[in-house]
């Protein structure tokens, strides 16, 4: 039980702290990064760069372990196929990201920074996820 809860809780907390420190809970900063042809703000390139470098190091070593610290085995994505659904979905996600400057993690983390605005975004996002579930059935 503790082993099932604590790693995700610590991971989520560290994740939320990093999102806030990096400015991702401020949609104005995120849109500033996406405004490449206007008044560009490169801050998010540092966020993504820092995160990718640390995680690339983790990928080098962690999967060599016999099993994760608190689970019996690794459960990692194995698909390699490039599908229209992957590309179309990602294209849509990018449009939504650009419109309001929010993606799922910062939207949820911002529930304590600007609760009403973040809640409107998060509830709408859950509705969008629910629509796909209804269209596709169980997945």
């Amino acid at each position: 039980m503790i082993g099932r809860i604590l790693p995700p809780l610590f991971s989520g907390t560290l994740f939320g702290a990093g999102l806030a420190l990096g400015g991702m809970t401020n949609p104005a900063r995120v849109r500033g990064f996406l405004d490449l042809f206007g008044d560009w703000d490169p801050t998010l390139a540092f966020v993504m760069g820092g995160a990718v470098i640390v995680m690339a190091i983790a990928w080098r070593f962690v999967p060599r372990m016999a099993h994760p610290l608190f689970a019996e085995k690794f459960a990692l994505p194995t698909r390699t196929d490039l599908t229209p659904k992957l590309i179309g979905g990602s294209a849509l996600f990018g449009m939504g990201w650009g419109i309001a400057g929010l993606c799922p993690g910062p939207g949820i983390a911002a529930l304590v920074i600007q609760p009403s605005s973040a809640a409107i975004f998060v509830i709408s996002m859950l509705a969008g996820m629910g629509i796909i579930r209804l269209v596709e059935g169980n997945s």
Partner: protein
Amino acid sequence: MMLPGFPDAAPLEGLGGGILIGLAAALMLLGAGRIAGVSGITARAVGISDGGISRDGAWAFLIGLPLGALITAALSGGLEAQFASPPFLIIAGLIVGIGTRMGSGCTSGHGVCGVSRLSQRSLVATVTFMVTGIATVAIMNVLGLEVL
């Protein structure tokens, strides 16, 4: 620290935040053997998807996100945030929800965990959502749509 030519940028905070996010994703891999992908974990928590991390684990991760943001806000003496108006938030939220489920991930799962693993699917997804995100902001600027 200032970045020459970009007076509004906060490169040190950005890098520090990114390192924390990377450590968070590494901790998820090390502790639970899983990807720290927020859209998938969210869908799992509310019962929209069935597989993956345990449901209580998914909630634990999600509760951590605002908790961590609160810690940063407390340590830094408050956070600046400027949000779009409700109509834009609703449209954006719906599209983000639909897109992340169709595309199997978002900025965290594809952009951080997948790109750092050199996953072909995640590299394609990340380039795609970066391009459409940049294009969306550019088009909205041309149309004079003030969001924030």
